[in-house]
């Protein structure tokens, strides 16, 4: 095992593999920054280039590219409030709020440092999990996946707004997300649901245009209304020392970062949940970690913990997602599905062999994730403070560029004008939600999880009838869901009685 670990490292450090990894990082860097141009598509486009490479070189290239996408995607989310990737939308809530307070540097520093911690934890988990991978993944069947999705939605819906009315709106937004997710052909009877005879709606709504619309449009409108720069009239002097402060924040809340990394790794391991889920659960956990109601109210207005959580989780999930890919030949996410194509091209058969005969290759992947994240984060820090200066650039230079990115970013989802219409429609919805004080996070999570909830419920009932409700992990998750809903209520009551006691 230790031998394989070292051998894996030496494999990556061969100059050719290392050079390909650097090339991959350079590509992934830009892909992450540009909204709409996703990591998945780019992986698919780059696949043909690996024919001539050896397995280690090929994976250094693909994984190097893939590992940094989530890191640099955070940068776009923080600076402009546009999700750089579908998997980095949660960083917007507090990251962009910090940028508007003139703390862009600190937010970026925190996002990058937590990304690094997340990647390391994910890689470590991958390395440690190798002996227990099979039983772990096999313990989670369709009923368990259904329950995880339910816990996730309950978690976010109950946490993202305050008071009874806030909770009502949280669940309403979550339910709306689930409803929107039913658009398209259903997988049971093949009925085209809510498509109104339009071909565009047939395959359901694409996540990226919806995310871009709901998050970016309100920010753009607000930027135009304010008329200044993103960071308003804040003094620019503080931007320069910000990044280091963000790194310190990561260590100030070190255990939170670690816990969120573990959440990300776990979601990554579960095939079928998809990469967009991890960030929101981590965000929910970060919010929940606030001890008092007053502390909790700071979230969404620029609490650094709201950056650390998703920042860590969306990088750690990659290590996790490699686990089922390597162990079963079954991809844990859509990007892993494309990596799987890479396995074949390189003459490797993913499956139990990867944990025995090809263990060194598997470890070389772990090392690639670690090294490429370290390199990206170090490289980013060199010009992080310059990036942060973008937030004090006059608005009228930024607005047209952001608008172009927003329109093209959504158009690239299906190369169809329908994507742009969809983006604008959800832009209006997003604007109304922001104006009315409704939380957007539960809506997004509902949309992401809608198909998973419906399908896994059907599968559970079709396969096990009602016996699935008695499975032990299902029961534990059910208890967790109830606790998650009750917790904020109890917390509110306790703090109220405490303040009464003070008075």
């Amino acid at each position, binding site marked *: 095992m230790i031998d394989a670990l070292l051998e894996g490292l030496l494999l990556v450090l061969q100059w050719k593999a290392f050079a390909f990894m650097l090339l991959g990082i350079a590509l992934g860097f830009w892909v992450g920054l540009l909204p709409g141009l996703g990591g998945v598509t780019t992986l698919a*486009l780059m696949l043909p280039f690996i024919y001539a490479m050896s397995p280690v070189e090929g994976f250094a290239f693909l994984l190097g590219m893939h590992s940094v996408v989530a890191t640099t995607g955070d940068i776009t989310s923080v600076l402009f409030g546009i999700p750089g990737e579908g998997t980095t939308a949660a960083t917007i*809530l507090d990251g962009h709020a910090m940028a508007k307070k003139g703390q862009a540097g600190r937010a970026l520093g925190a996002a990058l440092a937590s990304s690094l911690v997340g990647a390391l934890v994910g890689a470590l988990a991958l390395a440690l999990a190798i002996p227990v991978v099979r039983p772990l993944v096999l313990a989670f069947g369709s009923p368990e996946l259904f329950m995880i999705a339910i816990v996730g939605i309950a978690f976010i819906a109950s*946490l*993202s*707004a*305050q008071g009874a*009315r*806030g909770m*009502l*709106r949280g*669940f*309403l937004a979550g*339910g*709306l997300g689930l*409803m929107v997710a039913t658009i398209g052909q259903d997988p*049971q*009877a093949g*009925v085209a*649901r*809510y498509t109104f005879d339009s071909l565009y709606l047939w395959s359901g709504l694409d996540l990226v245009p919806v995310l871009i619309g709901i998050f970016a449009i309100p920010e*753009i*409108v*607000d930027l*135009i*209304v*304010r*008329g200044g720069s993103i960071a*308003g009239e804040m003094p620019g002097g503080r931007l320069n020392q910000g990044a280091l402060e963000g790194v310190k924040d990561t260590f100030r809340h070190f255990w939170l970062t670690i816990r969120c990394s573990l959440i990300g790794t776990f979601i990554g391991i579960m095939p079928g949940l998809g990469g967009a889920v991890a960030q929101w659960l981590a965000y929910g956990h970060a*919010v929940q970690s606030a001890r008092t109601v007053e502390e*909790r*109210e700071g979230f*969404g*207005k620029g609490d650094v913990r709201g950056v650390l959580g998703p920042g860590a989780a969306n990088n750690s999930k990659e290590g996790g997602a490699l686990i089922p890919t390597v162990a079963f030949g079954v991809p844990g996410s859509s990007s892993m599905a494309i990596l799987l194509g890479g396995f074949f091209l390189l003459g490797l058969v993913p499956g139990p062999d990867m944990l025995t005969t090809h263990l060194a290759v598997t470890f070389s992947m772990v090392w690639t994730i670690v090294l490429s994240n370290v390199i990206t984060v170090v490289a980013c820090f060199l010009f992080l403070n310059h990036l942060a200066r973008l937030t004090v650039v006059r608005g*009228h*230079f930024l*607005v*047209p*560029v952001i*608008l*172009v990115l927003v*329109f093209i970013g959504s*158009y*690239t989802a299906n*190369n169809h*004008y329908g994507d*742009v219409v969809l983006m*604008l429609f959800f*832009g209006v*919805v997003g604007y*109304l*939600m*922001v*104006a*009315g*004080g*409704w*939380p*957007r*996070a539960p809506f997004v999570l509902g949309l992401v999880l809608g198909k998973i909830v419906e399908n896994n419920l*059907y599968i559970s009932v079709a396969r096990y009838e009602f016996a699935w409700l008695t499975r032990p992990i299902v029961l534990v998750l059910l208890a967790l869901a109830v606790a998650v809903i009750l917790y904020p209520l109890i917390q509110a009551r306790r703090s109220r009685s405490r303040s009464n006691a003070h008075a």
Partner: protein
Amino acid sequence: MHSKASLILGAGIVLVSGAAIVIALDWPLKARLFPLAIGIPVFCMAMAEVLWGLLDPAARSEAMEFRLSDEAQGGVAVRRTLLAVAWMAGFSAAIVLLGFPSAIALLVLCYLRLQGREGWIVSGIFTLVVWALFYTVFDRLLHLPFPAGLVQGWLGL
């Protein structure tokens, strides 16, 4: 603004979920079960939300999220919001009429000249840079299929 937006949203959800329930009733059981199981509670919650808003209009509820800035107030804010909408609508129209490449150049140039009141030289150079980047990445490298605009079609190009 606050309660008005909530009211529009709540009423919208009541209508949409109501329609969704009615539409779903025609489907076979397996297809309609889930939309109904979600749609009915959403409809009820939306009704509750709307009633709450009507009965107690003063009650505010904050999401833990960014709030629209209140630097600009009243008429100014409304006027600027409409301006923002107009820019986006104009850009959308330009995309349909002229196609993406020309519309992008037009937007950047017009925005800088009209909204930003920059000089022609600054506007021109900035437009050129943005357009060149767009063209290299999305057209040359990624071969995105940008449909030609309607105007080009009318001119027979």
